[in-house]
């Protein structure tokens, strides 16, 4: 006999890292309806950027949108502002931006994988991944000076250079991290118990991804080749440093995990190439102009496409700053993905979607 239940989840829940509320309508164990509320952490950042801060300060304000992908926000905004100002930044600054973006991807993907393991009931695996992730956090601190809110990109370039010692430490720690991740990759690929929770669970196909306009590893795991890094060669030289698009086909939790691992291995390759080919040049290109007109900028953050629209009116304060974070694009897909799933699969599916509500609500 069917029994219909409505089960609330969140806004505070053990499986959630940030406040998010779902209402699942279930027929026995099967989810037949989903409702979501993402509006718990709106902080008025877009309004502050267009009223209280000058455009040069905004790159540091948008870094506060999110602790995890702070680098993506500061870089995407800086690129939009540079477009408006007609600034051509040095190749060295571009290389340093790529370096921190990829370090950021490493720590963010590792957090997601750790959380996916935890929500599947593998506490030991969670702790092992978090231990390994610490290396990427230490490297970010070494390069940027901070563990979170990195404030690395600024309008015109970057705020800090790397020394020979930092370069050596990066090479040493990344080699160790790469070896550790190869072991973890084998666990995620071949562990039978994990595959029960991951394979064929929480899947969307390519057509659904396109219809729902999903982005990031969620889209690539379903075979949709969408990655802003392949689109924005004019902003950062991705091809030159060895970027490769990672695509899987099955669109389930397993495929999302595999995409993240493969992207991290590509990040190691990119960082090695960046360090090997680091050009000479200025850290910051200066200008005294004020932004006028409108510009957009896109950047592949760890969770997918991050989009900035800015409009300037030849004063130091911008007229409009619009931020569209990757999780915001994926909200419609989140709702579809749970339909037809067992309620017990919700935690690992949710973790594999890697939601960032801080970015979404801003």
């Amino acid at each position, binding site marked *: 006999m069917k029994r219909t239940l409505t089960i609330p989840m969140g806004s505070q829940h053990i499986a959630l890292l940030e406040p998010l509320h779902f209402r699942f309508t279930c027929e026995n164990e099967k989810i037949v309806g989903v409702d979501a509320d993402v*509006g718990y952490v*709106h902080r008025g950042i877009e309004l502050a950027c267009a009223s209280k801060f000058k455009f040069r300060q905004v790159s540091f304000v948008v870094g506060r949108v999110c602790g995890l992908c702070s680098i993506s926000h500061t870089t995407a905004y800086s690129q939009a502002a540079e477009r408006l100002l007609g600034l051509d930044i040095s190749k060295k600054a571009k290389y340093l931006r790529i370096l921190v973006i990829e370090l950021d991807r490493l720590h963010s993907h590792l957090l997601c994988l750790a959380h996916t393991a935890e929500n599947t009931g593998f506490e030991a695996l969670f702790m092992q991944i978090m231990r390994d992730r610490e290396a990427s956090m230490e490297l970010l601190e070494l390069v940027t000076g901070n563990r979170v809110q990195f404030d690395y990109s600024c309008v015109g370039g970057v705020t800090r250079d790397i020394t020979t010692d930092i370069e050596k430490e990066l090479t040493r720690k990344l080699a160790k991290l790469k070896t550790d991740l190869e072991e973890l990759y084998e666990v995620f690929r071949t562990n039978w118990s994990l595959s029960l929770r991951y394979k064929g669970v929480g899947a969307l196909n390519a057509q659904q991804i396109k219809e729902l*306009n999903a982005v990031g590893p969620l889209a690539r795991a379903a075979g949709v080749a969408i990655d802003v890094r*392949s689109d*924005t060669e004019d902003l950062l030289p991705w091809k030159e440093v060895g970027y490769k698009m990672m695509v899987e086909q099955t669109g389930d939790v397993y495929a999302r995990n595999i995409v993240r691992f493969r992207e991290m291995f590509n990040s190691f390759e990119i960082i090695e190439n960046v360090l090997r080919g680091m050009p000479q040049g200025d850290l910051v290109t200066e200008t005294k102009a004020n932004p006028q007109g409108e510009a957009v900028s*896109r950047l592949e953050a760890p969770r997918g496409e991050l*989009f900035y629209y800015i409009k300037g009116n030849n004063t130091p304060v911008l007229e409009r700053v619009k931020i569209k974070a990757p999780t915001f*694009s994926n909200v419609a897909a989140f709702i579809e993905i749970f339909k037809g799933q067992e309620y017990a699969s919700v935690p690992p599916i949710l973790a594999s979607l890697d939601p960032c509500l801080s970015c979404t609500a801003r």
Partner: protein
Amino acid sequence: MQKIEVPFHQAHAKIREFYNVDKHHFIAMNGIDLGDKMEVQWFFSNYEIPGDVTMFTTFTNYEDIIPSLSDFIKSAWVTECEFYDLFDVKIEGAKKGFVLEPDAQDNAPLRRKK
């Protein structure tokens, strides 16, 4: 970025004519309060052409009801609900309380205050 300005009453039809689900990725909807009217923008990228971004833009009064794109873009309701919350300009089918709490102190933070 390619900018296409369309009359308000033709915005839905023009975007529908342009949009191809297999070709275009809907990025977001945006608004700018110009003081006496609103500028409404819709952004699209192209899966097939790297770096290609198209912006549709139109102008509207605060009292107008903006047509929803949800009938042909399944995910459009997310950005439309956010727009309604932040600007308090109505969009067909959009509900309040998606990004802001229903009892939020400022119920339209991006609307210019008189």
